[in-house]
């Protein structure tokens, strides 16, 4: 294991000056290849596309949280000059409940289709009902307002607790709880029950000297990407479609749009725009099928962009939820049992990440007797989308709060208590898998050694620590490494770059090829230029797409060695690859041929040179563990919390581009701090979202935060050639607990509800 204190390094390493890890390029910090376009305004994001003859779309959204659509009347809208097309749910194929994406996580196209455009029922404030395209955005927006919709208003149900009640209004009359036997005959709002268990926690709990138990609650929060969803679609007379869109996966857009519009994949080409933040929220589609249908009906390219209000009302959020946690321990701090029950709000359609909450909550701890029970519950809110380590933060918040309480009860340092019980190599997690070498304990140890943790606190100040875990995944990725005539290199992948992955692809290719990273140009290709790749998410790109790039680079090397062998008239196995050149083994009189030398005569030796790799990385994605430390000061008069100091420590495997790895830790921490302190969806009694903008949905701003220190613990992942572990998601798991523990310790009372607004904190202080 090596440690990198993230704050001394700067933009050096531009020339691959070498690193302490033994690599020439991996671990350096060159300027990102797409950087100049992004600091000069040249980079084209979703809303920046402009097409010949383009018209503009606008969406009619439900003002009601729960209602039947009785009638939609387009007459007035169609009379408006400039209106070119209108659509409603009737323009799309009717899908059946059995229409699912085959695979491990069977995504329901039936639900997705009804989420993208409502059919007979609206299920949340902001649910799309119809859309219109017109020659200007202003006319389209005006026309949208002229579309008359008649509703039969139904009673909304807004929280999991209410939705689970016997007589709760039902969102779907065809939803029957999965995971209970026998499957109920009566429809309900409970979509699924998930149970995980190791040993017998009930019996084991009886041997505890101390038990902590508590209820914790969180609200719906949004990913809060700064770029609203945007796309443009063109529909040609031969039925071929082009879609320009910002998303976490161009192939994802192609597959989902094809299914929802009843088209074949080969008819749809998706060109990825730069993506202005996703965090999981752009792993699904909203506008693309609407733009496609409007383009089809109008015969014109159609551009659609969401307003911030639309983003908040109708996209993304992650589930709010409640947790009941119970942990038992011996006097010496040894944990004997843990139980966790989670109820997550899925939004209007099933699919909250509650099972992942169950799997992750206790993952940092070695517990032989542990059980987690999860409930996936539909409510009249937007359908939950993935958000960075989906499901894990809420579960970790409850468990880490309970661990803090336990540390107090036992009089043991909270990091020492965590170390004493930390999951390590061979520990079996509640979902049944034994960990390989993991960096959990290394992070706790590193945390304990930080200057931060050993600095005394002042009055009204508190310190909180928390751990977090995320699996990380692999998946299907493709890459092509193309050698240009002058020996420069193009690395094409199908993985949208959401946080600097082009830089890490270039570095890995440079390392394998032995070509300077400045001579490598990575690009994100469209759906017709590289083979299929899974979307960017699950902290998989640097790991899995990186592996594809490595394989493709090795394939290109093989080709170049073959060319050299041909020129030298030696056997292929007489050629080796060293420092970016082919060398002839056992004959050092033959001058090595560099990539540029080989590229120059490529035509004479068989044509253009490239290497490719299409892989599915099914295993080896090393899990990520992190520990965060947070100091806060609470103003006892106003309840306002100031975050004074923050350190994020994480096992990142090998940091390919350490600056962007630090950036993941810092960004995840900031989002988690927002989740803990400010952010929440506020609904009226009628189920209307009240805070639809950044003014009152308050994400952290620069003056809310201190510098976020990072410690990169590097326990290389044996499942990757360079030891890469996914790093993007773990950092949002610990902050909720770390901040809550800090606030609780500052005021001397346990905070059990997020966000910890000043009013809630004052109430707690005043409660005596």
């Amino acid at each position: 294991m090596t440690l990198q204190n993230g704050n001394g390094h700067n933009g050096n390493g531009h020339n691959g000056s070498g690193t302490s890890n033994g690599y020439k390029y991996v671990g350096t910090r060159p300027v990102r290849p797409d950087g100049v376009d992004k600091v000069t305004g040249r980079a084209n994001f979703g809303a920046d596309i402009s097409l010949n003859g383009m018209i503009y779309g606008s969406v009619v959204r439900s003002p009601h949280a729960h209602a039947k659509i009785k009638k939609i009347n387009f007459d007035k809208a169609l009379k408006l000059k400039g209106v070119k097309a209108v659509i409603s749910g009737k323009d799309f194929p009717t899908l059946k409940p059995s229409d699912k994406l085959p695979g491990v996580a069977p995504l329901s196209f039936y639900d997705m289709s009804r989420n993208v455009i409502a059919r007979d029922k609206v299920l949340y404030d902001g649910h799309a009902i119809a859309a219109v395209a017109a020659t200007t955005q202003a006319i389209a927006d005006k026309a949208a307002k002229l579309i008359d919709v008649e509703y039969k208003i139904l009673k909304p149900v807004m929280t999991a607790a209410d939705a689970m009640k016997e007589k709760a209004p039902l969102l779907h009359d065809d939803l029957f709880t999965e995971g209970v036997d026998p499957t109920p005959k009566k429809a309900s709002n409970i979509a699924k029950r998930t149970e995980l268990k190791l040993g017998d926690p009930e019996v084991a709990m009886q041997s505890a000297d101390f038990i902590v138990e508590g209820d914790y609650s969180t609200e719906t929060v949004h990913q809060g990407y700064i770029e609203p969803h945007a796309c443009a679609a063109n529909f040609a007379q031969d039925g071929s479609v082009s879609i320009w869109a910002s998303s976490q996966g161009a192939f994802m857009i192609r597959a989902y749009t094809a299914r929802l519009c009843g088209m074949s994949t080969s008819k749809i080409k998706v060109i990825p725009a730069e993506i202005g933040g996703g965090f999981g929220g752009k792993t699904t589609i909203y506008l693309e099928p609407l733009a496609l249908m409007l383009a089809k009906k109008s015969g014109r390219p159609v551009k659609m962009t969401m307003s911030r209000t639309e983003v908040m009302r109708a996209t993304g959020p992650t589930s709010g939820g409640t947790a009941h946690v119970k942990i038992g321990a011996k006097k010496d701090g040894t944990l004997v049992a843990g139980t966790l029950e989670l109820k997550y709000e899925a939004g209007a359609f099933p699919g909250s990440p509650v099972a992942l909450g169950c799997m992750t909550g206790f993952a940092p701890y070695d517990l032989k007797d542990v059980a987690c029970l999860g409930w996936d519950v539909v409510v009249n809110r937007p359908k939950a989308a993935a958000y960075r380590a989906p499901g894990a933060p809420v579960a970790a918040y409850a468990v880490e709060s309970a661990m803090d309480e336990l540390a107090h009860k036992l009089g043991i340092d909270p990091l020492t208590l965590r170390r004493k019980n930390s999951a390590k190599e061979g520990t079996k997690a509640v979902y049944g898998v034994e960990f390989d070498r993991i960096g959990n304990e290394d992070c706790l140890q590193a945390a304990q050694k930080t200057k931060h943790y050993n600095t005394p606190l002042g009055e009204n100040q508190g310190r909180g620590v928390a751990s977090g875990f995320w699996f990380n995944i692999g998946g299907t990725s493709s890459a092509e490494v193309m050698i240009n005539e002058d020996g420069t290199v193009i690395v094409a992948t199908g993985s949208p770059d959401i946080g600097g992955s082009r830089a890490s692809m270039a570095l890995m290719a440079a390392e394998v090829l032995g070509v300077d990273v400045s001579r490598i140009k990575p690009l994100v290709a469209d759906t017709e230029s590289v083979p299929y790749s899974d979307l960017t998410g699950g902290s998989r790109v640097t790991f899995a797409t990186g592996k594809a790039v490595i394989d493709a680079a090795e394939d290109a090397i093989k080709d170049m060695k073959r060319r050299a062998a041909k020129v030298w008239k030696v056997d292929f196995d007489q050629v080796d690859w060293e420092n970016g050149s082919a060398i002839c083994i056992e004959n050092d009189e033959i001058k090595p041929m560099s990539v540029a030398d080989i590229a120059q005569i490529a035509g004479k030796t068989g044509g253009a040179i490239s290497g490719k790799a299409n892989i599915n990385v099914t295993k080896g994605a090393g899990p990520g563990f992190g520990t965060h430390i947070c100091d806060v000061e609470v103003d006892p008069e106003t309840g306002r919390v100031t975050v004074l100091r923050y350190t994020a420590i994480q096992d990142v495997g090998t940091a390919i581009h350490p600056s962007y790895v630090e950036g993941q830790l810092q960004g995840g921490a900031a989002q988690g701090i927002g989740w803990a302190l400010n952010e929440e969806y506020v609904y009226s009694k009628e189920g209307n979202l009240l805070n639809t903008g950044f003014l009152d949905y308050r994400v952290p701003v620069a003056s809310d935060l201190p510098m976020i220190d990072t410690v990169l613990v590097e326990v290389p992942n044996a499942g990757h050639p360079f030891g890469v572990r996914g790093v993007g998601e773990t950092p949002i798991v610990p902050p909720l607990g770390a901040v809550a523990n800090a606030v609780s310790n500052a005021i001397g009372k346990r905070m059990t509800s997020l966000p910890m607004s000043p009013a809630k904190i004052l109430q707690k202080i005043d409660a005596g």
Partner: protein
Amino acid sequence: MSKQHVTMTVNGDPVEVLCRADQTLLDCLRDEMGLTGTKEGCSTGDCGACSVTVDGRLVCACLMLGVEAEGRKIETIEGIGESEELHPVQRHFLEEAALQCGICTPGFIVAAKNLLEKNPNPTEEEVRYWLAGNLCRCTGYDKIIKAVLKAAEEMRG
């Protein structure tokens, strides 16, 4: 709605545009002039992605009408940096890795450059408060603040 004829200076060049009376400066820049470097994140002045300067003053282009720009000097991200050389703020953003997705970056650079023109030697706190009107969801601001402080140091010489 009929369009109005508006004359302004954009990044040093005289520009004439026709814009609707209700069209924001942001929409004029993006849709009428093709200057899409200025981004829209909220259209309510809360995110700062559309930061531009008007006669040297930092504004959200979404909160100003195009017609209000009559006779004024507008500077956008496209006007920052020389043809073959980046402005120090841009360069330090790259060297510090102060951007991840990059959607907020133009706004931050316009705002930060404006700060350094007014205050060449800001404290960390002053930078944080000046940039509090620009939202970034990726970076946690850490590297952005460092980039601005480094640019300030370099520009002071």
